[in-house]
């Protein structure tokens, strides 16, 4: 049929996952696994190293046909992108949000919608939105109406449409209290609260440029918040506890000691009811709360409801458009944890978004705007107090020092 397909088949046709339609057509056999798997002969019947299913089989027909032959796109309305191929074919991609943390019931609903309007195909974006593809205006209208109509009992949309263009799209985020062991904050409840507040900007093209928000619940930064327009970061502020009783039982002391980038952890010996026990001690003054010790050693927990909270970083970006990629910069070192609604965090982000939106140029990302007006002016306009915590004192600190007489007068100098 399709030249591209033939080429792929030639290369990968023998892989079990190249075409899985046959196995998918069979009903799920709940008993099969137990029949095949024998704990005493673990290798028996084991299939391994087959990798993912080949992508091509999951493309909607019109995408299969025009693979690599797309010509241009138009965002006909927020959340709806019309693609035109060299062949003249067109397709509408409809983007809608998801909470990312979703149940099988909800996924089944996605499948049902895909069957109804999209020949049974659907995709997820790199930012956890869902995209349906309609190959006609008619299907598009029906699809949109259907999506808008679906709500949870509590009234929230299941599939709000938007996230394209100069909008605030879905928040890349992580596990938080729902699944991880090292978080300083939750993830899903913060995302829900922030996006409830910014909802109007998800479904519209009102920002000067795209605004990408990310959240990571600890310094490991699984959300890769280090290059986001706005980053929500969970931080600890109390040094690790040390459980002298169990530490030797649950981790290698040398590894725990080596875990600390600042060498704040030193081997030690304590007396516990009469008997000497090996353990470690933390030079608390030198701790920067990175959490790496806890990652390496369960007996050194940092989590503390009072101490933990949110740090806000802004001005990062990833695309190479106009300016080069940038790291996010720490502008607010700490906001207390306020589950379930995180109101202070929500308020702060709203203020930054509004100020940026009101002041930046068209096409100008948040970080480029801040750099253009100067960070002193950014803090002033956003009404954010500047603290010494925003001054770098890690490895490459010197390169952030201000080595010029060029600066602007601001509230900070007015008040000297």
């Amino acid at each position: 049929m399709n030249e591209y397909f033939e080429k792929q088949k030639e290369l990968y046709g023998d892989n079990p996952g190249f075409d899985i339609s046959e196995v998918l057509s069979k009903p799920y056999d709940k008993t099969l696994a137990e029949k095949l798997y024998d704990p005493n002969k673990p290798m028996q019947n084991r299939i391994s190293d087959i990798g993912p299913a080949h992508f091509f089989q999951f493309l909607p027909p019109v995408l299969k046909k025009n693979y690599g032959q797309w010509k241009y796109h138009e965002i006909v309305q927020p959340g709806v992108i019309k693609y035109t191929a060299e062949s003249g074919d067109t397709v509408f991609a409809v983007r809608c949000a998801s909470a990312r943390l979703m149940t099988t019931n909800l996924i089944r609903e996605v499948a049902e919608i895909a069957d109804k309007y999209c020949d049974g195909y659907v995709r997820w974006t790199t930012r956890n939105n869902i995209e349906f593809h309609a190959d006609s205006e008619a299907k598009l209208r029906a699809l949109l109406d259907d999506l808008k109509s679906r709500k949870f009992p509590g009234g929230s949309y299941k599939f709000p449409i938007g996230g394209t263009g100069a909008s605030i799209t879905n928040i890349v985020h992580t596990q938080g209290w729902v699944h991880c062991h090292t978080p300083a904050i939750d993830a899903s409840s913060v995302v829900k609260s922030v996006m409830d507040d910014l909802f109007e900007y998800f479904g519209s093209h009102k920002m000067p440029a795209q605004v990408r928000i990310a959240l990571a619940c600890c310094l490991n930064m699984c959300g890769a918040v280090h290059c986001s327009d706005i980053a929500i970061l969970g931080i600890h502020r109390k040094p690790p506890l040390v459980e002298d009783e169990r530490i030797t039982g649950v981790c290698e002391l040398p590894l725990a000691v080596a875990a600390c980038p600042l060498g704040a952890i030193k081997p030690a010996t304590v007396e516990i009811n009469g008997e000497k026990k090996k353990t470690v001690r933390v030079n608390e003054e030198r701790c920067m709360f990175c959490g790496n010790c806890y990652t390496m050693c369960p007996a050194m927990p940092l989590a503390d409801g009072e101490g933990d909270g949110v740090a806000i970083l802004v001005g990062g970006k990833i695309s190479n458009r106009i300016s080069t990629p940038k790291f996010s910069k720490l502008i607010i070192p700490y906001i207390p944890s306020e589950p379930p609604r995180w109101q202070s965090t929500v308020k702060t982000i709203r203020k930054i978004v509004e100020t940026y939106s009101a002041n930046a140029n068209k096409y100008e990302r948040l970080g480029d705007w801040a750099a253009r007006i100067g960070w002193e002016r950014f803090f002033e306009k956003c009404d954010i107090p500047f603290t010494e915590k925003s001054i770098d004192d890690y490895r490459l600190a010197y390169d952030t020092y201000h080595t010029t007489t060029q600066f602007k007068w601001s509230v900070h100098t007015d008040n000297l």
Partner: protein
Amino acid sequence: MAEVKKHATPMCDDLKKGPWPSFVDDIEQQGLSGKQECLDLLGQLELSFKHKETHWKHGGIVGVFGYGGGVIGRYSDVPEQFPSIAHFHTVRVNQPNGKFYSSAFLRKICEIWDYRGSGMTNMHGSTGDMVLLGTKTDQLEPIFFDLTHQMQIDLGGSGSNLRTPECCMGKSRCEWACIDTQAIIYDLTQTFQDELHRPAFPYKFKFKASGCPNDCVAAIARADCSIIGTWRDEIRIDQTAVAAYMAGEIKPNAGAHADRDWGKFDIQKEVIDLCPTKCMWMEGKTLKIDNRECTRCMHCINVMPQALRPGVDTGATILMGAKAPILEGAQMSTLVIPFIKMEGTYDEFKDFVSSIWDWWMEEGKNRERFGELMQRQSIQELLRRTGLKAIPQMVKEPRSNPYVFWSAEEVEGGWKRDVAEFRKRHAA
């Protein structure tokens, strides 16, 4: 349908309000339909809201036979209150590249997960996997057998091995894809199955491929090896379309700014003046580009997709070393190969990758990311290990410190010197 126990979760319940999809509502519905794990998860989350602390124990090494990754062990630290999630392990399933699915695929995996897991998922994990959230240790092998036998799909990565490679949607839908990101990532994932499932590295290693410098999969920030499409010929220009944009007949940036009045489109202000290299100009009614000076930032193309398109002599720029802050601070990937053709089975690229891995496995310390090794041992060492040539494109600017290393071979007369000889010329 099993008896289910609902906990009092007033704080969680508050999260049902508001327009944004409510994970609480979703999970609670699933719970009430018979999934105790869902209700227990909300119960434990409520407790976390109260304590402002997670209630998951540290780690726990679990997995499937023969694999060193793909499963993250999790145990509740309040199992008495929430017994159904006492075990709550995560299974990472390698997503189809580009994250396209058929409804059949989705339904089947849902059936498996309802039967053997909590019924909760992340679509998707930050690395790109389908993340199946919450199952018990005894279910791990059956899940693996179900996936491989009944779906012919495999697990993704975790631990100190290759992590699940990821890409943007690329050629499947995007007109700007300079490389076939999905095919590339599919091939690499297949080629490196052993590295993906069996930890042999000092630490994790990630591949991400974006089809153009817009970098929609954040490769430059989130992959130890970032593969980003580019071109080395000329931007294709359709002058009539340029005129149409100037006449206001086509919305700039495909309508991405349509909901706000930014005034009439001004090609000078919005394109030519914003070009980072100032390599564009109007000659009468025709738009000119000095492609030799263009850095392929995509801006002009983004603004006028119907008038401008990337060139046709396409390939990839390879950048290395991106990572999150732990430990030496975050890194973005550094340009090491300005242009490489990505065709056939990518052998030249794979040779490069193995030279990188050999170096890292030889010299990398435990839990030292590749980017950190690069910083510790220098780009010069990378050149030696890979046979790449030093080019100015690898740096923002030349070094400003004078602390250059020389080898004895490079220096006339070598390093062997005789003190007596020296003192003959110079009295002490």
